[in-house]
């Protein structure tokens, strides 16, 4: 089953590269997405058997993030059909600076997309720290070309920054792996292979000092990938320049994968009785990320960048939740799900808006509700969901995290948390509502046309799920999240 999860996208990538006709390739993309989603869904029905001697297996956090990733990819793939149709062949004009540019060949794009999926799947299913690391490394390499889909200097710059910064982060994480190995091979007892179950079992024998150091490196290394401030610098550039469906995957799926890396490290620390060691840091990073996000969301002129910073904010929120521990961890995990779905939907809608208005500037976009009724509705709904407004799921998760903070009597944290959420709400509200409402400025020849089904249905479905999670958290999901939270101590 796990093998299928990994092989489907890889083979898909190969075929996609080979195929000649775009139509076939798009069909194949959707087919692979469906297949992957089906298998991923299957893992809920029947526990997949471990593979490679337990190096690849699916535990609660893995299943949670795997499902989210797979669902998002499905949505992105469907949307991709509509999006790729919009991409005219040959050279097109850049609407910001007016020069001509062309796209990367669609074959490369699709292949990289599928490899990206494979890499993320690997991250979610790997129990071995090394494989986990390899997977995250692979995501970087697979997604860099995706960011550089539109071949012009801005996207190139974004890709370069993404590559360099994340590589540095990854390198640190690698060092973390070494430290962990040292901790595992430490004087007391036989060397422990870097596989989660073994590590958890032998946690007592680990060398604490090296373990702590390893955790710090994992935190900084994977934190870079995850977009925790102040390590987030690549994130807004990449998200704003990449095609919208790529941004959706980066924000919705990739960040979670990086989070998973930190989660694993924290799991080991917790097993070794060092849970408190990491939690302080996580709380700090969480609040800092929210603060930095607030700085750049307030008065942000570019709506895709705004969404990117909002991702930083939410990574902060769920890090804070995990850092608080107890109910907070549950809230954090739940929030990871809510955020992924919502943010992906928002990016997909942003793609529609971008295609219609041909501008990323918040000021240029007016009256989306009139020009693109469905997208406009989703845009507003997504905004409400991302700002934690009932009846959307993120409200519950944010509430849970706040409760954790207050129950622990950490008033300062709670106050800062609420204050930052407030600032960010104000910032996003003025931008989003300003875009959604009013009458369109006719300068850019904006004319409402029927929105192709595939361009709105995926986002709509995601929002619907978030809404559902807001009024009803299915017991099975609840139990998986709870289990994942328990693993973190």
């Amino acid at each position, binding site marked *: 089953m796990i093998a299928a999860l990994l092989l489907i996208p890889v083979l898909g990538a190969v075929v996609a590269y080979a195929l000649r006709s775009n139509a076939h390739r798009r069909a194949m993309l959707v087919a692979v997405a469906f297949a992957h989603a089906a298998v991923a869904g299957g893992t809920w029905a029947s526990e997949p058997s471990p593979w490679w001697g337990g190096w690849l297996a699916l535990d609660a956090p893995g299943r949670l993030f795997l499902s989210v990733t797979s669902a998002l990819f499905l949505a992105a793939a469907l949307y991709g059909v509509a999006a790729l149709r919009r991409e005219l062949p040959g050279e097109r004009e850049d609407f910001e600076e007016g020069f001509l540019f062309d796209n990367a060949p669609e074959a490369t794009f699709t292949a990289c997309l599928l490899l990206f999926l494979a890499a993320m799947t690997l991250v979610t299913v790997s129990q071995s720290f090394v494989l986990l690391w390899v997977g995250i490394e692979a995501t970087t*390499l697979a997604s860099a070309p995706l960011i550089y889909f539109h071949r012009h200097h801005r996207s190139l*710059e974004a890709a*370069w*920054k993404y590559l360099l910064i994340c*590589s540095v982060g990854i390198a640190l994480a*690698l060092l973390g792996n*070494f430290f962990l190995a040292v901790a595992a*091979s430490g004087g007391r007892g036989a060397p422990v292979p870097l596989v989660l179950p073994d590590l958890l079992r032998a946690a007592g024998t680990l060398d604490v000092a*090296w373990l702590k150091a390893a955790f710090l490196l994992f935190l900084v290394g994977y934190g870079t990938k995850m977009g925790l401030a102040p390590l987030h610098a690549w994130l807004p550039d990449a998200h704003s320049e990449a095609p919208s469906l790529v941004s959706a995957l980066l924000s919705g799926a990739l960040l979670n994968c990086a989070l998973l890396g930190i989660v694993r490290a924290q799991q080991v620390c917790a097993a070794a009785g060092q849970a408190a060691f990491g939690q302080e840091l996580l709380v700090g990073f969480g609040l800092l990320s929210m603060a930095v996000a607030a700085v750049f969301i307030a008065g942000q002129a570019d709506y895709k960048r705004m969404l990117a910073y909002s991702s930083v904010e939410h990574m902060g929120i769920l890090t804070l939740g995990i850092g608080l521990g107890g109910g907070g961890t549950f809230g954090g995990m739940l929030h990871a799900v809510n955020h992924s779905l919502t943010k992906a939907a928002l990016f997909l809608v942003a793609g529609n808006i971008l295609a219609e208005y041909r501008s990323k500037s918040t000021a240029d976009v007016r009256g989306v509700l009139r020009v693109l009724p469905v997208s406009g509705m989703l845009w507003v709904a997504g905004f409400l969901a991302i700002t934690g407004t009932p009846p959307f799921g993120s409200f519950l998760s944010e509430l849970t995290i706040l409760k954790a903070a207050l129950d622990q009597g950490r008033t300062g944290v709670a106050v800062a948390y609420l204050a930052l959420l407030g600032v960010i709400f104000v910032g996003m509200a003025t931008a989003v509502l300003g875009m959604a409402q009013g009458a369109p400025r006719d300068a850019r020849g904006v004319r409402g046309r029927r929105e192709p089904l595939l361009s709105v249905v995926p986002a709509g479905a995601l929002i619907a799920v978030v809404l559902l999670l807001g009024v009803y958290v299915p017991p099975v999901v609840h139990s998986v999240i709870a289990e994942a939270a328990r693993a973190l101590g």
Partner: protein
Amino acid sequence: MSDGVDAVLICIVLTSFVLVGASRLGTCIRVVALQGVLLGVLTLAAAESVLSLRAPLLALTIVGLKGAAFPWLLSRAVRDADVRREIEPFVGYKVSLLLATLALAASLWLGARLPRPNPAMSALVVPVALFTIQVGLFIIISRKKALTQVLGYLVMENGIYAFGVGAVEGTPMLLELAVLLDLLVAVFVMGITLFHIRREFNHIDTDQLVALRDWVR
């Protein structure tokens, strides 16, 4: 045995210093190549038993990649993109050397604080590795050209690798493989990106890559 390792490690430190002080691109590339070779030697020196096939294989690939392949790739990039041969640092060379010294001190301090990973192995391993990593980071941060950043990244990787080879005893092969994989693809992709950058901007300085930001004077 251990003093052999120490010798290599010290050489690595020296090369790092040279790298920090060097003003010409060509020199840097050559120094990095030299460091690669040194790492190969370290691999051999650190191996418990020379007879095992693992160490020589590893050493060979390391030398092959770090000593030959990447330097060649980079120098070609330099040649094609008629870049000025200077490093153009943000931080002057003297200051850089001073900072490097501080970094060395810091890593010695840190290395002393951390329990010694592998009693059999020289005490210098951890500090040197950390130092090399810091130098790599420093080069990335303090130098202008995209190319120098790739160099810096390589140096950083060298440090990590040194740590791996020196400190981690009986680790699964996987780790070294990971390093190689990382180097391979990372540098490969970076190379491609460099190529694109050159095509786009006709040079490989990064001070052109500042279009994306939220801050305007």
